[in-house]
């Protein structure tokens, strides 16, 4: 694997995380539990789509094969997408959405904090810009974890169910792939083993404050970062890509 090729692949993976999150969260548009949260969650969806564009533009330019950000979003197949499994899990309800975002936001925060100091200036610039948004995302999902976890009996129960259901997807975030190991040896991206203790500490802190019970040791699902997805991924791409697949190159 050469350096440039690895950076392109990594930028695509970062863009894939952001795009799948943005797509999932945008499903709440017009369906939020209250007006204020409808606006809030779609604001966050747009943050993620904006970050996607930065990563895809960077990847497309560095790759130099004439692909555009739209080609990368709309014309790649499921195994070419390298987002973690957690992010493709369905919204289900507000509790599942908040827990999914929280488990991701904690990781995303520490990842970007590190990437902001990457010697690869293209990566560092995107990370620095995104970090402000991600800091707010983490604040937002943490506040909701606490309020609903330490809320009514019903909200606590819903949050615990969501946490139990999604926990098995949290391990993949800090699991290294060969690509990430290669970039870590070059110092371009972080060793995720160094992020894991920070991740665990923050997750424990908020779960504790939310008076929820941390799920016990369980088998952790993985494969998303290698292109092996859950059954939900195909449906996300079908909805997102259908227009460009039917009418390639169509512009709004």
């Amino acid at each position, binding site marked *: 694997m050469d350096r440039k090729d690895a950076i392109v692949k990594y930028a695509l993976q970062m863009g894939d995380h952001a795009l799948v999150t943005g797509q999932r969260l945008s499903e709440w548009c017009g369906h939020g539990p209250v007006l*204020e949260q409808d606006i*809030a969650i779609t604001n966050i969806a747009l943050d993620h789509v904006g970050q996607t564009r930065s990563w895809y533009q960077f990847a497309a330019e560095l790759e130099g094969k004439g692909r555009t950000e739209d080609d990368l979003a709309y014309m790649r197949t499921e195994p070419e997408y390298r987002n973690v499994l957690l992010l493709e899990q369905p919204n289900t309800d507000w509790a599942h959405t908040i827990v999914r975002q929280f488990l991701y936001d904690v990781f995303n925060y520490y990842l970007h904090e590190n990437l902001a100091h990457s010697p690869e200036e293209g990566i560092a610039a995107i990370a620095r810009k995104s970090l402000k948004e991600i800091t707010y995302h983490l604040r937002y999902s943490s506040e909701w974890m606490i309020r609903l976890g330490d809320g009514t009996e019903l909200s606590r129960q819903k949050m615990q169910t969501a946490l139990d259901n999604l926990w098995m997807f949290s391990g993949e975030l800090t699991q290294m792939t060969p690509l990430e190991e290669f970039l870590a040896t070059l110092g371009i991206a972080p060793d995720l083993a160094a992020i894991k203790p920070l991740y665990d500490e923050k997750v424990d802190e908020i779960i504790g404050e939310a008076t929820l019970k941390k799920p016990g040791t369980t088998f952790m699902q993985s494969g998303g970062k290698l292109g092996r997805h859950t059954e939900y991924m195909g449906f996300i791409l079908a909805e997102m890509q259908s227009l460009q697949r039917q009418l390639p190159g169509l512009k709004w």
Partner: protein
Amino acid sequence: MKKEWPLWEVFIRSKNGLSHKHAGSLHAADAEMAIENARDVYTRRNEGVSLWVVESRHITASNPAESESLFDPAMDKVYRHPTFYELPDEVTHI
């Protein structure tokens, strides 16, 4: 109605040096969430540099029925306006 979150009034300072202005209202479970909601609902287009929220029930309003006695007496007292002074060009926001 008891299940509804309380109503909050939102005030935004659009830039440093100006005072906070009423922007609107929203529902939120508590003060911190009211700030977050205000950020998302009212400052998405770069409207502000500072936010205040106050629960609507803490605002005491004047009675519209009393507006004649409260406000009409000021109508014919033009000398209370600073229009008789020459203002230097540098003075703004008056």
